[in-house]
């Protein structure tokens, strides 16, 4: 990184032009530079400040994870799956619903970061890491479910291809094995993708900390010094991962959808489930990023400098587009079923809208389609963080309802009416689902005080490449191509 670049500010500008430039600076983080050391200190301070409130949340959530998740899960292992509400014909319930929900959220985190990086969307700079962390912890929460929902979790490792005396391998024809491999692939690649841009920030933190923090950062910085060769290699590696992780995300979430799509269940067996699930995952994931950004902005020190209204605005547009794409796939499912004329499928889809659990279906449509379409076209709404917070939470409620509709509600009304059945979640299942939510927030809270949530070097790099330049009498922002 070269020496600090002073932004161009017209010294003899008229008051009118000055205020225009000020407005631009207020609006865009990239045009509002700050001395590098000051910014480093801000991030260090945000990271090291732990309030009484923070400790209360960490302890409360830690207890909740211990009781709601691990305590209840232990009880279920000791008693049997029967404490959950699943029954014939609904053999998968809340566990798999929450599994798909978390996997969807986590897949979108890295995807959002990678796709914005690849397309050089400059507004991405301050929040890529927050999105990537969401991936890691979303996977940590979601990857528990393939274990939780097993009838005999103590022999889970039979799903792993390992050499054994019986010469038995997992069944590679099973979508569950593909799923297992896909999630492992994604966990590994997204963790590396999270770690690579973290290295220079770790070095920054190493140089500004003492004690145990210094020790951790020293380890994680891998001896980073900031030489030209190191930057060159880092950029290359990040670029490779950003490009590679996009197809990985597509394939991995398609495979998750194949858990359902390759089956014989009417309403699951569908060739559009791959893209349908991907769009759904991105919709819920981008929404979750906004939710998290709002919380970070309102609880952490100095975050209102990094996370601005422009970011909510930009992400709000993305949510609107993905909500429309999601609606297209939803409509597609119905129109193809109608055109195909399969009686069982028609029955399933009709019962979604008219059956005893139709309110789930309506919740899904209201939250995923009506609310984004009614509100997000409006720039004022997109630029009001607390409104965006509420809307994005509702979108995720809608996406949860979508998975609920797809899994237990579809299983409950298959081809033989004698075997129709309604599924009632029990307190055990709800508790475990809440437990993983607590686990996610807990991990995020801890991480927010250990690693810099803002990729500082990327912000600084962005601020260096952005300047206000005078063209004629007006000042316009200009971007220099760095890579």
């Amino acid at each position: 990184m070269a020496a600090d670049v002073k932004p161009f500010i017209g010294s003899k500008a008229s008051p009118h032009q000055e205020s225009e430039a000020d407005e631009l600076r207020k609006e865009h983080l990239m045009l509002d530079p700050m001395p590098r050391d000051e910014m480093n200190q801000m991030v260090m301070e945000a990271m090291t400040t732990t309030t009484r409130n923070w400790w209360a949340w960490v302890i409360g959530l830690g207890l909740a994870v211990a009781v709601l998740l691990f305590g209840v899960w232990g009880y279920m292992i000791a008693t049997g799956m029967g404490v959950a509400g699943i029954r014939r014909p609904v053999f998968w319930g809340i566990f798999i619903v929450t599994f798909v929900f978390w996997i969807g959220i986590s897949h979108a985190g890295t995807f959002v970061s990678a796709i914005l990086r690849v397309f050089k969307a400059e507004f991405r700079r301050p929040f890529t890491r927050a999105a990537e962390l969401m991936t890691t912890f979303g996977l940590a929460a979601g990857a528990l479910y393939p274990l939780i929902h097993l009838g005999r979790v103590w022999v889970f490792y039979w799903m792993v291809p390992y050499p054994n005396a019986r010469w038995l391998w997992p069944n590679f024809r099973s979508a569950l094995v593909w799923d297992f491999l896909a999630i492992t692939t994604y966990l590994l690649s997204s963790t590396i993708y999270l770690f690579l841009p973290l290295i220079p920030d770790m070095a920054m933190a190493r140089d500004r900390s003492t004690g145990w923090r210094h020790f951790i950062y020293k380890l994680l910085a891998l001896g980073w010094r900031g030489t030209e060769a190191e930057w060159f290699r880092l950029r290359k590696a990040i670029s490779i991962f950003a490009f590679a992780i996009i197809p990985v995300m597509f394939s991995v979430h398609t495979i998750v959808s194949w858990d359902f799509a390759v089956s014989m269940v009417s309403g699951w067996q569908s060739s559009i489930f791959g893209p349908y699930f991907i769009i759904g995952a991105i919709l819920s994931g981008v929404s979750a990023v906004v939710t998290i950004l709002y919380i970070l902005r309102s609880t952490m020190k100095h975050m209102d400098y990094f996370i601005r209204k422009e970011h909510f605005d930009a992400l709000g547009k993305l949510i609107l587009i993905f909500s429309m794409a999601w609606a297209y796939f939803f409509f597609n499912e119905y129109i193809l079923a109608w055109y195909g004329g399969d009686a069982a499928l028609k029955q399933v889809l009709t019962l979604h809208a008219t059956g005893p659990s139709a309110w789930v279906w309506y919740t899904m449509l209201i939250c995923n389609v009506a609310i984004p379409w009614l509100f997000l076209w409006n720039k004022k709404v997109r630029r009001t963080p607390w409104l965006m917070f509420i809307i994005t939470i509702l979108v995720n409620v809608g996406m949860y309802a979508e998975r609920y509709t797809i899994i237990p509600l579809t299983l409950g009304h298959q081809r033989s009416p004698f075997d129709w059945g309604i599924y009632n979640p029990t307190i055990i299942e709800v508790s475990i689902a809440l437990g993983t939510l607590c686990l996610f927030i807990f991990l995020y809270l801890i991480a927010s005080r250990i690693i810099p949530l803002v990729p500082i070097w990327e912000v600084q790099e962005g601020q260096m490449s952005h300047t206000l330049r005078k063209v004629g009498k007006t000042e316009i922002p200009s971007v220099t191509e760095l890579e």
Partner: protein
Amino acid sequence: MTELLAKEAQDEKWGMVIDLDICSGCQACVTACSMENNIPFVGEDEMAYGRGMQWMRIRRYWEGEYPEVTPDHQPMLCQQCGSAPCEPVCPVFATLHSEVEKINLQVYNRCIGTRYCANNCPYHARTFNWFDYEIPAPMNSYLNPDVTVRRRGVMEKCTFCVQRIVKGRQQASAEGREIEDGDVTPACAQACPTDAITFGNLSDPESRVSKMVRSDRAYKELENLGTEPRVTYLKGGKSYGG
């Protein structure tokens, strides 16, 4: 001897025919199956919630408008599909095809309880051990020593009384002959008071089941899904007395 066994193995393809026109829905087959296969009783509440463990169930449908209704019974059990949807989805090969009997096996010891097979079964023929079901004394004495007692967390289903098939084959080979029609009778067929259930070898064109399969009343449940069921139902409607 080994050659004989190998030849028999090649020739076996077990199948069942259920004549719905003479089935009275008495549930004797359900009871017999439960006794033969050590199926636990789950209690009234669990049963009502849809967690009955019976491998064979009588599906009852009503025909007509109330009060002019007639009941319609269909014993439903694992169809031992030739191309079974439950098999490819199991991640650990706990459900797989037997090469000898050509039926679907469930390996209880291998099952880890993902329950995917049960979701994917269009006949809902599979039952899951939601708990460890206690069999109170003295009823534990009725347990059939030829059949594994299952623990919690594993899937199970009708096996076409594979223990009886094995016994029948051993009996035949001990007597130095090939296995014949009538050597093997599963518990449900044995208990049926109207003789609505017939069991036998489908690869023998002269066996009773093979002849009945060729009946013009024969149909297979959800055959259009391509599952190739080994259970054939006979239903002719009113003119046959149905």
